[in-house]
């Protein structure tokens, strides 16, 4: 094999961020473990999973907000990230117009700001106080802010919160449009897999570790997927109903159906996961 003149750590220069067997431990508890993922330029990767399954933790680790307790995270050099977190609570004491919010982390010209706000459909709100916006308007403003940076990698943690159904579809169209126009990579967390499915290149289902993954088409063609989506396609939570064959114990070890206990899940365990926890929050802790 020919050696490149410039040796690079990542296998492809298009890879924006890569995680290898990454895990995050907080106070002796693994929030998420054994995550492998890669986001390439022009690719949309969507993380799904029940509450507490480590979706946000995974995304935050990927972009360096959290340091992984084990494994590796590699980001391309000079990577520009645009981030829309799950929650941004604005303090009333801080006056911040939508226009000023746009230049929060980097300067931008007025015309660039207007273009970004127009693309997000909130140009008419430029002069309003950001704290006074509705949930959907604020999400759009945050998305406009993130894309204004012309990021290589856009990370969206539940970008459609507080947005009504028609707004959701429009917002996902906007996200796909950003990808098509700028060629950036997008790492997205979503509950609404039935809507994002068509635009997503790779779906990664998390439940404290990677449960299953793949291109939506290949996943859709699989009998397991049909079993998942065929009967209750209308209910997004039904996505998570796989069959369980192992239990995550409190100390992070795993008990299998035959009663054996191992330190990790086996590679082939994932597809049989039961995400019942998503529907019954009271049980959420059991699986996590």
């Amino acid at each position, binding site marked *: 094999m020919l050696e490149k003149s410039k040796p690079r750590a990542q296998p492809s220069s298009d890879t924006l961020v890569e995680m290898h067997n990454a895990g995050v431990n907080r106070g002796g508890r693994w929030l998420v473990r054994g995550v492998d993922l890669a986001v390439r330029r022009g690719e949309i990767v969507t993380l799904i999973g029940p509450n507490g399954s480590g979706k946000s933790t995974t995304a*935050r680790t990927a*972009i*360096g*907000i959290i340091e992984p307790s084990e494994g590796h995270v590699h980001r391309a050099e000079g990577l*520009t*990230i*645009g*981030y829309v*977190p799950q929650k*941004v609570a*604005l*303090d009333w*004491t*801080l*006056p*911040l*117009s939508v226009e*000023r*919010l746009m230049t*929060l*982390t*980097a*300067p931008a010209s007025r015309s660039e700001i207007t273009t970004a706000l127009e693309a997000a459909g909130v140009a*008419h709100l*430029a*002069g*309003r*106080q950001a704290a*006074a916006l509705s949930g959907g308007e604020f999400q759009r403003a945050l998305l406009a802010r993130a894309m204004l*940076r012309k990021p290589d990698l856009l*990370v969206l943690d539940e970008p459609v919160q507080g947005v009504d159904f028609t707004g959701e579809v429009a917002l996902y169209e906007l996200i796909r449009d950003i990808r098509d126009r700028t060629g950036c990579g997008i790492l997205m967390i979503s509950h609404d897999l039935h809507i994002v499915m068509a635009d997503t290149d790779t779906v990664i289902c998390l439940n404290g570790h990677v449960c299953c993954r793949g291109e939506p088409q290949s996943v859709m063609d699989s009998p397991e997927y049909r079993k998942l989506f065929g009967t209750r396609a209308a209910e997004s939570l039904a996505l998570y109903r796989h069959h369980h064959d192992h239990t995550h114990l409190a100390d992070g070890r795993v008990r299998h159906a035959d009663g054996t206990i191992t330190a990790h899940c086996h590679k082939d365990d994932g597809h049989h996961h039961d995400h019942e926890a998503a529907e019954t929050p009271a049980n959420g802790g059991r699986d996590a």
Partner: protein
Amino acid sequence: MLDDFFIRALVAGVGLALVTGPLGCFVVWRRMAYFGDTMAHSALLGVALSLVMEINLMVGVFLVAALASLALILLERRRALSTDALLGILSHSTLALGLVMVAFMTWVRVDLMGFLFGDILAVSKTDIAIIYGGGAIVLALLVWLWRPLLAATVNPDIAQAEGLRPERSRLIFMLLMAAVIAIAMKLVGILLITALLIIPAAAARRFAGGPEIMAALAALIGAISVAGGLTASLQFDTPSGPSIVVAALVLFVLSLAPSPVLKTETSSAETKP
């Protein structure tokens, strides 16, 4: 002109207010009022230690206030107690330690009231030079730090993800607070420094449409408070430091009053296309 003690006090006070206004906005936005109080209270321990070690008072106060904030960061990481309780412990124990140490030092005469409540009427030309020199450095650093600090204030995760290093911003901001406390102690005293940080900023909120405007307005309101408080103190023979704080309070209360002018201002901002 600076030969008159009143003018010296005015010049010194206005110089301080120009720095505490913008810095105080961040104290308000970041909900660090109690934190500022804690750092200010630790100043008395700084005074006592400087006397023992025979170093410059301002340097000693700056170092102890900075150490108190570092101690808080480290204690917070252990997550044993809430920040609130930790602040309470640090705030009062540093103040008490300072008072006890000063009481032991029988060989020096310590004007305790001067440290606790300040004596702005006693400022010298050297003090004025320190206030303006130090103040200019603090303001310059604040301008330099403005974007990352504001981003970290709005959302630390965004700041971190987008490469603005919020922890570094926070650390530098704390050092700036420690510096301002060291500079301000002689003027308004340990117990009233936080008031000059918070009240002008709070009074400015109502009139500000953006963070930069609020910072400028806070500086202005602080300066007016100093002028008003000092004038009143001369007129009614009241203590100068507390009079300045009372003047700031009056401006804050006025800022809360309903006014037809203000209403049109806010509504016009909202209807702007």
